[in-house]
């Protein structure tokens, strides 16, 4: 079984613990982290808004990219230590949802955590990035709650009889 465990900064411990518990001993595990390049692009764009000053030096080292790559490396190393089993480490950069789906190509199961509202069961427990990944994953998916799942009572009461069935959440 080839398993891909996608970790994000805030919830990586819970995802790793679940993977360690769930995956059989002979599973071939890849730990994946994807750094979004969006904050770097926003920071760069803000500098370009400063008309007439701070001309960007093309040869200047990409300070934020270096910080981001170092942080991803440390996170993956800590994650492997917590997993306590051999695993391939994969660090990618770019649009997170696209990179995760691309990394899941040829994989049997993808393990990931919900990244939205954790107080209610329902569509808001998935942010747009995770929803895209689940909607487009080319493999099986194990979706975990990063802490304990909310109770069933958090689901709103059903609509009165005769109402059409709820629409699926919007595609994002």
């Amino acid at each position, binding site marked *: 079984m080839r398993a891909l465990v996608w970790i994000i900064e805030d919830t990586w411990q819970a995802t790793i613990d679940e993977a360690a518990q769930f995956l059989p001993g002979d599973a071939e595990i890849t730990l994946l982290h994807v750094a*979004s390049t969006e*904050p770097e692009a926003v*920071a*760069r764009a803000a500098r370009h808004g*400063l008309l*007439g000053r701070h001309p960007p030096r093309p040869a200047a080292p990409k300070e934020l990219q270096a910080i981001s790559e170092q942080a991803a490396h440390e996170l993956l190393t800590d994650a492997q230590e917590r997993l306590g089993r051999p695993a391939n480490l994969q660090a990618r950069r770019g649009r997170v949802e696209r990179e995760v789906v691309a990394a899941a190509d040829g994989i049997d199961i993808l393990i990931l955590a919900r990244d939205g*509202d954790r107080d209610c069961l329902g569509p808001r427990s998935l942010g747009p990035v995770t929803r895209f990944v689940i909607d487009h994953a080319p493999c099986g998916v194990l979706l975990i709650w990063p802490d304990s799942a909310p109770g069933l009572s958090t689901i709103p009461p059903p609509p009165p009889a005769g109402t059409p069935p709820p629409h699926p959440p919007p595609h994002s």
Partner: protein
Amino acid sequence: MTDGLALAAALVVLAATLAVAVTRPPHVSEAVAAATGAVLLVVVGAIGLSGADHALRTLGPTVGFLAAMLLIADGCRREGLFDAMGAVMARGSGGSPQRLLAFVFVIAAAITAVLSLDATIVLLTPVVFATAARMRTSARPQVYACAHLANSASLLLPVSNLTNLLAFHASHLSFLRFAALMVLPTIAAVAVEWVVFKRFFAADLTRPRHAGARPARPDLPRFAVAVLAFTLAGFALSSVVGIEPVWFAAVGAAAITGPALARRTATPVALARAAEPGFLIFVLALGVIVQAASVNGLDSAVRAVLPTGGSLPDLLAIAALSAVFANLVNNLPATLMLIPVAAATGGAGPVLAVLIGVNVGPNLTYVGSLATLLWRRVLRAEDTDVELGEFLRLGALTVPAALVAATVLLWLALKA
């Protein structure tokens, strides 16, 4: 040369200068382009030598003030103020992304107000990015906060934004009076940002987290903080003691650069670079170019569209028009065109309303103006892989509300 021809020449030179500043071709600096354009306008007679001289003399003290503030910001960086701010955020947030955002808001607003938006964008943003990375939380809300607050918190003091410095002289306000009138508008603009950010980035801010180790207590660089405190106190007292604020900025710049030169932690070349001579020349030359356009008819065109009264609808219209203008041509030229008209016809109220528009308005796009945004997309620049729709939505949610809230509070402050 006829007025019409002179106006056309000035507008063509202005457009060419802005095009160079926005597109940044590899071998032409914006300073050289602007200076060449200004000289050209004098040579062809679109502006007389005395007119150009007058524009330079008017801008001179402002540009000197700007250079001093750039040196102070650079000195603060050298003394470790920005790294210390990173440590303050990391420790104060206690591992919570939402508290980190609160710290970023307060610190980015304070750095912008005291050391200008340039300091927030160039010096603080990398520190915030690194702090979020070390805390292992999403840097998205934090970096967007720096980009937005650099604009919306830049209303407070004459030194917070070059646009304010340009208007300060024309407004005939004392430093303290300027700050007193702008404190409520600044708080209003930042509060609008806070409310929108908390909802907009809710998913990034509320993920469950394991508590990490508490970071070490930060060491504040006392010398840099003391220089800043002295300089601010000087600004506040400037009208009482009858000394122009620019002199306190000069003393602050000397105080923070002198010891570094003596200790050889900074070289004269590095200091000269930190004062950004190219940028100073660009501002002076842009002033001459805009002046050439203004005296040949642009002034009366602006007069025809810009309301001049101090009523609330007038101030709102001024702020909205200025925001639109800043988005069309970037806020520096917009300020140079609008401020003289607002100052001559309406006084302090309209001048400050123009500043609200040109300072908050650029948040509509993430690169300061639509012109820059379009150009960078045409050039397929690296930073255009940002989810454009998302940034524009964030701008659309914050800018109109911040403009209205800040302008209403300015109107109340003017009446008090």
